[in-house]
């Protein structure tokens, strides 16, 4: 029910939304909870396990009951707290966990079965037989119990992530946070003030007292305006700091205003701060009395918030049940608004009424009635029992400081007898100070004063000058509380409303010897729901302490872990879907390649063409075979820019390379290229490639595409950590040069048709390199071959890459040649026995691949010492061999294993494995590279290739891994 003339958003425009299909009107600035209560809707949910009717318990992010689903289909968002969801035009919200309807929920039968469904029920009942769990019990339980559901469709909503840095992060913009922000901001520090609410102010937005002679909510708004006008202050509203991490890093979740389809839904922030001040306030806790979970029973502070902030009375006749002074404010505010207060039940025998309302000092609520909402309570006091008609009971068991963030790095809070709750210890989070209610200071004046004092301590730590700021005048009442955790009486006394845990469950846990707090939590699921027991944990601990006979301080708390509120995985991984999953690296020929219809394959982040289909070609293999023959007979062009290129310069460049590679490069002549093999320090092969000497002190190294980053990191390591004595510098120039392979018998002729000066075999022998000009552009030419043919690689600065690619393609096509892709490149290199990372996969040595003699024993180099380990020289190791099918049609498969005739194809008899396979159009059958035990000596033997996964068995002949032109006459010729 809306109270005329009340509420800070009373002049806001009207907003239309629906809940469970019914249309309602609210005001801009309402939460869904406030708007529903304004429309007298108080039953909004069914509980998790027993399907009991539930309403709003709180008015904030700690809400355990009022969870709803927003939207439909792919955009369906479950478990949204109605108490924080701002309404907007077109909002469609639905209740959850009820069928066929919220009012008539078939599963409410669970509540009648509750004596059989107590804590530990699942563990005891569904133990046996094992297979029943997956097939029968779990599906039934999942259907019966639960919160909202996902649609199962891919979420199309956008989320964002962002980073922020500041000197001081202030968490919470209540009275303490506002004063802390003013204090540090005036000293010139760079400040972020984050608050989970739609506006800063904290409790000041829900109370009616004055600060500095102004209504407190207006005072807060004034200060926030002042702060927002300061250049060194960023105010982040709707932003919940969810976790505290190492070195002043915090995670925060920003809710973007909903209803705007253009805007992202949420933004996940990482905030790096020099110092932080926690002003997170406190959360009110319930009292465990029988049937304390009916819609209409809520926290006293929530009733005050709905009344003062949104002008909504959650009931027509309100009663209050408390053990402290603070709750009496609720009665005063209600009376001031003209709402009937039917009684304040204060468990403290000596409690006095602070206004004109019926007072039940020393009283307790021992029973409640009302099936879908509260109608009557029964009060017991020294005069006996009284039934009171009431549709809203405001309860307060006291306040718990919001210590959660202070526990995220393993600190435990300590018990305070003054406030009967836990308070944070000093230094719980490095470089964080705590102020205000989060530290157990509950008066407004106390919070304002602490905000200033703690902020000045922070300024001192930062070496800045303290700010002189007057403490505003404000209420300074003392907080009186006496313990009241649970009330005797018949019926279940609920603790964790979201997980349906009640007092008896805790007692049962203790009976079953789950006595420590962490055991009790797991046995009962207390505090394990999405609200993480923000309201209920302390009461549950008190009940546990009572049941075990240990005190509350000895019982201690469970561990608070991030995130403070639920965070969608979509927000944490924002941007990392689809094309955002990984960056894409494109070569200069990318567009021309796509234009020719080439399917792309990924090589790390690079995109490379698989093959270039011609009209009439129907399979990749048909195209691949044509491209292989084209290179062998004519000429082919292939973009090889993705290979890593590292420019190495300096007087010690040669010595550096001698230390990096297992073979020698200082002796390489200028304008010559050499194949190099790089080991890891443990003696295994890291990478291979060619390195060219461009000048006396200048080399250009090529790495494989996939290992380019790893090799660069390795060079940095060796240069900085192991050989800082060497005068050498290097830089990756992979992106700076476009490089194309020109391969085949007509490659020299093709180049001579495009180069400004022609080349010949005498001046450009195999493994030579040097400068060339092409259409006036200076480039580099390397006479190297990865196909076994007479071949070159030509490189130009990247900005000329696309046009050179077009030129080479056109010339090649005029000579019966053309483009070839990765499939053909792979066939060409397997026919020649050239290795890739399929072979040098991290567990092979230079010996294993037949390059043992390359490891120069006259010098030290990375991996040299360990490559001589006995185990790595063992002749029984697997060595690189070639495989040919005995029958021409025999199929070879990569990943298959090799066995000896007559032995079972099991791992004990394993002789080796296949690393690379292709169909060779040159030979007319499959070829494979493989590792075989003692393989060098087994050329000519027969082995059985077995692929259990693809159900293939093929007899193979072991042979030399170089199938074509073993002497290398083609590439030299």
């Amino acid at each position, binding site marked *: 029910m809306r109270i005329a003339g009340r509420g800070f958003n009373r002049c806001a425009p009207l907003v239309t939304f629906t809940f469970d299909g019914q249309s309602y009107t609210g005001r801009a600035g309402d939460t869904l909870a406030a708007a529903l209560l304004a429309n007298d809707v108080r039953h909004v949910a069914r509980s998790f396990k027993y399907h009991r009717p539930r309403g709003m318990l709180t008015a904030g992010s700690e809400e355990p009951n009022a969870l709803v689903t927003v939207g439909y289909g792919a955009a369906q968002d479950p478990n949204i707290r109605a108490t924080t969801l701002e309404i907007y035009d077109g909002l469609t919200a639905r209740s959850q966990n009820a069928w066929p309807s919220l009012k008539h929920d078939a599963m409410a039968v669970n509540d009648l079965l509750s004596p059989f469904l107590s804590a530990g029920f699942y563990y005891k009942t569904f133990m046996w037989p094992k297979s029943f769990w997956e097939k029968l019990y779990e599906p039934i339980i999942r259907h019966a119990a639960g919160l909202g559901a996902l649609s199962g469709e891919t979420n199309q909503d956008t989320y964002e992530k962002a980073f922020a840095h500041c000197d001081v992060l202030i968490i919470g913009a209540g009275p303490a946070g506002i004063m802390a922000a003013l204090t540090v901001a005036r000293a010139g520090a760079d400040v972020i003030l984050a608050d989970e609410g739609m506006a800063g102010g904290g409790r000041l937005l829900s109370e009616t007292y004055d600060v500095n002679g102004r209504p407190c909510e207006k005072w807060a708004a004034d200060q926030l305006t002042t702060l927002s006008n300061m250049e060194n202050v960023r105010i982040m509203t709707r932003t919940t700091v969810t976790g505290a991490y*190492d070195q002043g890093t915090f995670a925060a979740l920003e809710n973007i205003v909903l209803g705007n389809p253009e805007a992202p839904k949420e933004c996940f922030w990482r905030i*790096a701060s020099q110092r932080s001040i926690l002003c997170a306030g406190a959360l009110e806790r319930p009292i465990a009395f029988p049937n304390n979970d009916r819609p209409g029973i809520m926290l006293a502070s929530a009733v005050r918030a709905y009344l003062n902030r949104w002008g909504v009375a959650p009931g027509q006749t309100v009663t209050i049940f408390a053990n402290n002074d603070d709750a009496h404010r609720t009665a005063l505010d209600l009376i001031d608004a003209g709402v009937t207060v039917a009684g304040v039940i204060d468990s403290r025998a000596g409690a006095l009424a602070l206004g004109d309302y019926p007072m039940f000092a020393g009283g307790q609520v021992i029973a409640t009635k009302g099936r879908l909402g509260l109608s009557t309570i029964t009060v017991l006091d020294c005069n006996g029992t009284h039934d009171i008609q009431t549709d809203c009971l405001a309860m307060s068991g006291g306040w718990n400081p919001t210590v959660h963030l202070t526990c995220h790095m393993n600190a435990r809070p300590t018990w305070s007898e003054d406030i009967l709750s836990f308070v944070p210890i000093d230094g719980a989070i490095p470089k964080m100070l705590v102020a205000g209610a989060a530290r157990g200071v509950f008066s407004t004046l106390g919070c304002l004063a602490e905000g200033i004092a703690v902020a000045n301590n922070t300024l001192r730590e930062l070496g800045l000058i303290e700010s002189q700021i007057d403490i505003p005048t404000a209420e300074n009442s003392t907080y009186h509380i006496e313990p009241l955790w649970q009330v005797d009486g018949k019926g279940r006394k609920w603790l964790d409303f979201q997980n349906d845990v009640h007092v008896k469950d805790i007692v049962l846990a203790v009976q079953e010897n789950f006595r420590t707090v962490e055991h009790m939590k797991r046995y009962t699921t207390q505090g394990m729901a999405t609200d993480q027991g923000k309201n209920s944990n302390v009461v549950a601990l008190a009940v546990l302490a009572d049941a075990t006979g240990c005190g509350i301080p000895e019982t201690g708390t469970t561990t608070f872990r991030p995130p403070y509120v639920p965070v969608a995985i979509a927000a944490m991984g924002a941007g990392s879907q689809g094309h955002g999953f990984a960056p894409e690296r494109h070569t200069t020929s990318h567009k021309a390649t796509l234009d020719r219809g080439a399917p792309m394959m990924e090589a790390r982040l690079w995109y490379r063409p698989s093959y270039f289909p011609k009209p009439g070609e129907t399979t990749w293999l048909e195209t691949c075979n044509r491209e292989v023959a084209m290179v062998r007979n004519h000429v082919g062009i292939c973009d090889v820019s993705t290979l890593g290129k590292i420019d190495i310069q300096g007087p010690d460049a040669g010595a550096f390379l001698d230390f990096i590679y297992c073979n020698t490069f200082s002796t390489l002549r200028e304008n010559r290229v050499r194949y190099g093999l790089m080991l890891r320090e443990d003696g295994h092969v890291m990478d291979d490639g060619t390195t060219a000497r461009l000048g006396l002190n200048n080399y250009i190294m090529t790495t494989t595409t996939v290992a380019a980053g790893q090799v660069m990191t390795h060079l940095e390591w060796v240069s900085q*950590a192991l050989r800082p004595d060497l005068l050498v510098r290097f830089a990756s120039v992979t992106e700076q040069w476009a490089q194309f392979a020109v391969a085949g018998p007509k490659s020299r002729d093709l180049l001579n048709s495009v180069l400004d000066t022609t080349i010949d075999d005498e001046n450009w022998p195999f493994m030579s390199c040097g400068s060339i000009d092409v259409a006036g552009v200076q480039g580099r030419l390397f006479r190297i071959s990865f196909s076994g043919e007479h071949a070159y690689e030509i490189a130009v600065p990247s900005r000329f890459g696309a046009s050179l690619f077009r030129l080479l393609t056109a010339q090649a096509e005029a000579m019966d040649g053309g483009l070839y892709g990765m499939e053909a490149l792979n066939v060409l290199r397997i026919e020649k026995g050239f290795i890739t990372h399929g072979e040098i996969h991290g567990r092979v040595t230079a010996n294993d691949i037949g390059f043992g003699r390359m490891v120069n024993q006259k010098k030290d180099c990375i991996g040299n*010492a360990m490559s001589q380990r006995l185990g790595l020289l063992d002749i029984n190791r697997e060595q690189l061999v070639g495989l040919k099918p005995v029958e021409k049609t025999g199929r070879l498969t990569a990943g298959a294993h090799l066995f000896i005739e007559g032995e079972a194809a099991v791992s004990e008899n394993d002789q080796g494995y296949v690393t690379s396979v292709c169909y060779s159009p040159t030979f007319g059958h499959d070829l494979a590279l493989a590792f075989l035990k003692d393989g060098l000596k087994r050329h000519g033997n027969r082995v059985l290739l077995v692929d259990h996964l693809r159900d293939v068995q093929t007899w193979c002949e072991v042979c030399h891994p170089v199938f074509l032109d073993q002497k290398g006459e083609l590439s030299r010729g």
Partner: protein
Amino acid sequence: MRLPCPLCGDRDRREFYYQGHALMLERPLRDAGDAAWDNYLHNRDNPAGETRDLWHHEAGCGAWIVVTRNTVTHEVLDAILVEKARV
């Protein structure tokens, strides 16, 4: 987690590549023997407390640094370039 790169200042952990203990700086001589090399490559303590380990500012300036930090409290005590950390 943030690390203080001696060249770039405080940077997010994600900019760095982690290598392992700073023992890797003390490379044995080539003929130091199998035991020395085995220790160098494979054997590491797993201290609860202070440790020195190697990080590469891969997505930054490219510096290899030695970070002194506490594995229990996660406190970062010091970070220096590897060139200055060599004995």
